[in-house]
């Protein structure tokens, strides 16, 4: 088994907003998806969500707001999973609810130091 990082990207301005019931249903989708990976003993670390606002530090003391000046997409969170191959990691990522709202998941194998 190898570890893979799943990076969730979405259009920050299009983050799901709705009634408390809709938000609850949205949370449930995520929890059921992560729970399903954990039930296969393939969750390495649940990871975390990221706050939308951020800064990017560039050479020459250039600090800009957020990584999304040119692109609207930003990283909303990450999770670490265990899989035998990149293909298997991809098939686990295919169940991610972010795909239902126009987001995407980047799947990257961890290369331990």
């Amino acid at each position, binding site marked *: 088994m190898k570890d893979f990082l799943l990076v969730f990207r979405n259009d920050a301005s299009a983050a799901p907003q709705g009634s408390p019931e809709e938000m609850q249903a949205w949370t449930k989708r995520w929890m059921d998806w992560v*729970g399903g990976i*954990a*039930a*296969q003993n393939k*969750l390495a670390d649940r990871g975390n969500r990221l706050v939308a606002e951020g800064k990017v530090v560039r050479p020459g003391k250039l600090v800009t707001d957020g990584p999304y000046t040119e692109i609207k997409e930003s990283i909303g969170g990450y999770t670490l999973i265990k899989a035998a191959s990149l293909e298997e990691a991809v098939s686990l990522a295919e169940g991610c609810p972010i795909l239902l709202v126009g987001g995407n998941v980047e799947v990257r194998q961890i290369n331990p130091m």
Partner: protein
Amino acid sequence: MSENELIPHLFRTEYRKITAVLCKLFGFEHIEVAEDIASDTFLAASEIWGLKGLPENPVAWLYTVAKNKARNFLKHENVFHNKVAKQLQHSGAGGEEPDIDLSVQNIKDSQLQMIFAICHPSIPLEAQIGLALRILCGFGITEIADAFLTNKETISKRLVRAREKLREENITIEFPAPAEINKRLETVLTTLYLLFNEGYYSASDNSTLRKDLCLEAMRLTYLLMENDSTDTPAVNALLSLMCFQSSRFDARLDQSGEVVLYDDQDVSLWDKELIDKGSYFLHRASQGSQLSKYHLEAGIAYWHTHKADTPEKWENILQLYNHLLQLEYSPVAALNRTYVLSKANGKAEAIIEAEKLALDPLFQYHLLLGELYTGINNTRAAECFEKALTLTHSAADKKIIARKIGQCR
């Protein structure tokens, strides 16, 4: 209570107290002596009480005899005497005649310290459970062998090895330092949790013994809860879990000793008082920010005390299992979560998830698949049940599975 009933009863309640206090005094170097003195005390009681009748205060009688035997031992063991005398002087208790303190407080303290000593991270888990049953719970070798479905020789050997391990590792009978308590408690709670489960899920047919195991695990957890420095949220959560689970003890078996599945249980046989206690400890467990797996399991057990099949119930249980699996994977939790998924989200989704679990060696896995396919694809369901049947050796399980095969034909 007649003398015939009284001695076994007192053995169960007092043997462990005498052993804990003496062992604390002598150290694990002489653990066998402590156990022998406690056993000899009961032997003396059965001989003398049989001839002279019951003393006025049987417990006090036992303590006096145990104290005298301990004093004799200390007097006659020269090397040992010097060692203990030094220790006693060191602790300010000094003098030639050591005070063997069988007060309520010292018994409690000794037992708590003994729990920490036995449930030590360097002692293998199996040995911890054996020692806990023998020394903390006062179970006989036959009873322990019965609980583990093995023979007396195996258990005796296991206990000898476990005692050797206690000495090799130089484990002392004392409270862990305050900074270490939470870490050490984790090992203690794991052992108590397994002890309880051994009673609750054991394949042993002896239901009285199984109930005793559960009660003992609860008593030890209660001791931790009563002590300020070990009265943590996780301890309360475990105690809550144990109360909720054991509330169904009497409903789980019918009059002929046959297993009654949850869905078929008579709710009027559930122990209301234990359910209330479970809620009380769960409330105490929710103070603070600590969330242990016992909290989640207690939450799951709480919802199981609601018999009615509501969407709210299954949704709550599903999320608790999702959370539990993220904290710690176990095949049982994975199987249960998938069953609950079928209740909350429907069988179609649960079947897809179940097929991914890859727990083929477990009969419970095929049982779950059979359950999910029942009513959707009965041929497939029957195949799964057949497979489960070939993988279990328990007569009770075989009976239940055979009934299910009959239902899908």
